[in-house]
Every structure is written in C-alpha cells, then in structure tokens.
C-alpha cells in the first residue's frame, strides 16, 4: 500500500497519541496513580506505527515489556490501557496484567511480555495457525536487540524459516540492553546480519524514519502474505527515557540523549517530510495534536473514575470457568 496523505496523517497522529500517552503515564506515576514499572516508548514511535500501518485488524502482533506503542499502533484504546496502568477493573486486562502484559485479543494484539524474547515463539506459532487454516494473516513480533542473544530468538526464527511461516520479526535495536550498550555484549553490530543463519532476508533500517519503516516492512508483509516466509527487520532506534522509570542513566551522556531528541525525533522528522510534500498544514497539525491531547486527557479521566477490581476477582481467570468437556 503506497503512502497516501490520509495514511500519513493517521500515522502522524498515532505517533502523537503514543508520545502523549507515555508522557502522561510518566506524570501519573509521579502522582502515584500509576504504579509498577513503566518502560517508556518515546523516541521509538516510528517503528510501531510504521510497522502496524501495514497490518490488518486480523493480523497478529506480539510485543515486549516496552509495548504501549505497539498496542496503540494496533488500535488498542488509550482509555483502557491507562485504566490498566491504574490497576482498574476496566483496564485491558482487568487490572491483572499491568504495563508489561497489556493485550487486546479483539485486535489480535496477543500481548506485551515481561520476559525478553518470549514473544518470538508464540508469534511464530500464531503464524503457523494462519498457515494451517489457510488464511493470509501475518504475525509481527517486536523484540529488542537484547532478545537476539536468547535461545528463543534462534529457536523461534528457526521454525519460522523452516516452515516458511508468515511472520515478520521486528527487532527494535535501541542500542542498550537495559543499561549495557550492545557493543559490550554482542559480537555483531547488526541483528539483521543474523538472518543469514536462517536463510531469510535480514534488513537493517533507520527506525527514526517512519517512511523507511513503512516501506520496508510493507514489502516483508507482502512477502509473508504471499507465502514467501519470514523477514528479520532491524530498526535502529533510540529511547528518549531510561530503561524504566527511575533509571539513573549513568551509562549514557545527556549530550547523546539530547542529540537524539533534537536531531532524530521521529515525530519531528515525519513532520518535516509531510510539510515538504505539503501533506500537512499548520492547522491540521495543531488539530491532530489537540485531538490526541484530548484523547489522553479523557483516558486519564476514564481511569480515575473506573472502579478497582475486588477480592472476588483474585481467583478468576486462572482457568476457564467451565471445565466440563463434552
């Protein structure tokens, strides 16, 4: 699908929705309303939005511990996500998952995941299901560069390649594995180079450039839908905040962070592209940002006004309620 002005505006808005959701979640944490770990996606918005811009509602997405962006890009409601962060019963997971486990099965968003690299096998399994049923659904698995060191990466991609499954492996290489620069713990600079071991295409792209993300992943999605098997896409990106809230960030300089924020902000870069093409007026830009702000403000209001789950909810959802088989 070629990039149209309408699609660009939608994607631009989604990037703002993610950015503002994260900043508001950060603020709500400092207010004490949001508890638990918060892994912010700011700076990486072009990856989630550029990838999901190619997906249908029935395509599968599996995420990471840093998945608010993936969820919003796949269509999850910020109101229910915020309620989940608040631990409310109206949350996407009824308050049982929290930030690292947000899922929306109505959108085939099969879940963020608190274990590094743990989505790769399940994403490949969902792709196996699509292939067995003869649908042309694809699966996308997001993971970080740290996951490429795990056995699940090798085993999952090995299966995907072996059976030519419709899955796109999207590595968000934000260059740090929690506090450790990739160069300290990995021999290969590029995760995409590992694709050769599985005889699948491996492509490294600029994850700050949403147009490149959209176009390269679009080709991978088309290949997967048409039976051409998996692709490993490495999007080189950067997180503007620490690994999680409270990270002192002694492993990187403020100059480095500032240079990415000032020169490589994916929203600013996309704005420049759209302005250059005359696809976005100043009025439209202002309206998009206003709408996104209103949506996030409403999300907080929804979360605040929602009830907490109660003691009776503790023991539900362990197993399906009806265990009788027929």
């Amino acid at each position, binding site marked *: 699908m070629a990039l149209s002005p309408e699609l660009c505006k939608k994607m631009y808005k989604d990037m703002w929705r993610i950015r503002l959701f994260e900043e508001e979640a950060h603020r709500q944490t400092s207010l004490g309303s949001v508890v638990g770990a918060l892994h912010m996606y700011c700076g990486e918005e072009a990856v989630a939005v550029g990838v999901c811009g190619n997906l249908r509602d029935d395509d599968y997405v599996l995420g990471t511990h840093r998945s608010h962006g993936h969820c919003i890009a796949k269509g999850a409601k910020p109101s229910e996500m915020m309620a989940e962060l608040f631990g409310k019963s109206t949350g996407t997971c009824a308050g049982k998952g929290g930030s690292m486990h947000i899922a929306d099965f109505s959108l085939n968003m099969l*879940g963020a995941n608190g274990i590094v690299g743990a989505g790769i096998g399940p994403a490949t399994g969902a792709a196996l299901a699509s292939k067995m049923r003869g649908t042309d659904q694809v699966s996308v698995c997001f993971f970080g560069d740290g996951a490429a060191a795990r056995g699940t990466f090798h085993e999952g991609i*090995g299966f995907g390649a072996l*059976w030519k499954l419709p899955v796109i492996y999207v590595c968000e290489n934000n260059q740090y594995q929690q506090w450790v620069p990739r160069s300290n713990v990995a021999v290969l600079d590029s995760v995409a180079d590992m694709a050769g071991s599985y005889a699948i295409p491996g492509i490294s792209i600029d994850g700050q450039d949403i147009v490149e993300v959209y176009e390269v992943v679009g080709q991978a999605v088309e290949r997967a839908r048409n039976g051409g098997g998996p692709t490993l896409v490495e999007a080189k990106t950067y997180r503007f905040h620490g690994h999680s809230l409270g990270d002192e960030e002694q492993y990187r300089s403020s100059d480095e962070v500032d240079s990415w924020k000032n020169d490589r902000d994916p929203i600013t870069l996309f704005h420049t592209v759209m302005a250059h093409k005359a696809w976005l007026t100043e009025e439209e830009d202002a309206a998009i940002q206003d709408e996104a702000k209103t949506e996030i403000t409403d999300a907080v209001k929804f979360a605040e006004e929602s009830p907490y789950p109660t003691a009776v909810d503790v023991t539900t*959802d362990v197993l399906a309620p009806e265990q009788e088989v027929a």
Partner: protein
Amino acid sequence: MKTLTFSGALCEALHEEMERDESVFVMGEDVITHGGPYKVTDGIAERFPERIFETPIAEAGIVGLGVGAAMAGMSPVVEIMYMDFVTCAMDEVVNQAAKMRYMTGGQASVPMVIRLPCGVGRLLAAQHSQIMESWFMHVPGLQVVVPSTPSDAKGLLKSAVRSPDPVLFFEYKRIYTSKGEVPDGEHIVPIGKADISREGEDATVVAIGPMVQKSLEAAVLLEDDGYDVEVVDVRSLSPLDTETICESVNRTGHAVVCGEDSSFAGAVSEIAAMIGENCFDSLKAPVTRIGSPHVPMPFSAELAKHVVPEVANVTEAVNRVMA
C-alpha cells in the same frame, strides 16, 4: 471395548480427536518417523499429513509455537520426548502458557496439551528418568494429569485435548506397554476426578501413576494380613479431587500416599498435607508418604532398584499405619 496398550490407547485418542476437530495438531521431535518414540503418534502422518510436524530439537521453540498457535485458536498436542527436556522450555510452560489467561484478564486461552513421557523406563539415569509432577502442580494455570490405565489414558487425553487451558500430561514410560480394556469411540474421563480403583474399609492408599497397579497388588497381599485396603487413583494432580480422597480417608481412618517421584516437596506431600488438614479427626494414625529417596536417578540397576518404590513398600507402609 477392546484390549489396547497404554500407548495404543493414547494413539487412539489422538486419532479420534484429530478426526473430530480440525484445529487439533501434533508437534514434537521424531513424532513421524517410526510412529514416534513411543508409537503414540503412529499412523497420524498417513491420515492427517497436514497436521503433524516433526521439529528440530528445540523444546523452547516447540512449546513457544504451541502457545502462539493455541492463542490463535488451534489445539496443539506437543510431545517432549523425555519430560526431563521440558526444563529447556520452562519459560514457555510457566511464564507463558500457564499465565496467559490470568495476565490478560481472561482474554487468552491456551488449549495446549504437553505430553511428557516420564519416569524410569530403560536404565537411562538422571537426565532421562525424572517425574517432577509437583513442579507443575505448584504453577497456577496449569492442569496436571497422570493416567495409570489404558482406559484412563484415552479418556483423559481426550479431555485434555478439549480443555481450554494447558494440560501437562504425564505418561510413565514403564507402563506404555501395559494392556487393558478400553472403550471404543467417545470415552471421556474428566480432568479433576479421582477414581476408586478398589474399595476397602480399613485403609486408603492414594496412588499416582504406576503406583496404582502396585497398590492393587499390595492390597491383594494385605488381605492375608487381614486388611481390606481401598485404592484411590488420583488421575489428576491439579486440580486435585480432594472430595473423593477425603471421603475415602474419613471412612477408613488410615492413609498411605504413594508415588514414584521423590516424596520431598513432592505430589504425595501436598496430598498428605491436604489429608492431614481435612481428615485429622478421622485419622487413627499419621498419614504416611511413599516415594523415591531424594536422589537423582542412578544408572546401575543395582542402585536404581533401591530408588523406585515397589509393592513391598506399600504393604510395609499399610502394615505400619495399621499397627
């Protein structure tokens, strides 16, 4: 009704379930060649070639794919060639399959069966003989099933395949070739229901897996000592049929709990503690556990014979609680 081996009964269950439901598929190491390592998947490749997958040696991948396929609406039956190897997929079992429904607030369903050939078979020592039922009993969201007869093997596997939640299906290798009567066609044994294998009035022996048959043999010998022994086959360790077990113990006043795994923090320990809590007023003697000593499985037959509990351990324990 026909006579089948334990593995033949499992095979029949798989064939029937795959015929019934197109979402059921089989995945595992060597499951096509020679009909699988234990002949449990025999004939499936010929009959359902699109729904059986022989995999690389990659247990985390096998179970991980199973989780994803299950969440996407399929019903995978995965085989871990030796249950010892499930430790290579513990994240997929414990953090993924078990917790998905809960973590997603009830959105996810993981209808996956993980078949686990376990226990001593040939003498293969410490990395090919484990049982570890209690590891998985301890994880909420998992069901743990242990059939002891060909009939229950078929009925429980059919239930496991139809369950909307993950089932760890323990198959004791030493009883794969045991034979028994198995009902034809639709034969369902519900998960979570124990079976009274033999009725008796004096003592209750609660048994797991192959210890059921050994307890039945012990019960015959104990008749000579004047004891009328009831044998309860737990069949499901999680959920556990506390009602049937407690009803029996409250009636007899004596309880021996036996399994082949180490009794230290083992399945028998949970059952013994449960009996102690619920049946204290009826008990005329302390609850006794039988299990293996807390050692890795040794190789030499001369060593291994001291590890796996046998009939004599049951008769001795019953005599002790009755004394």
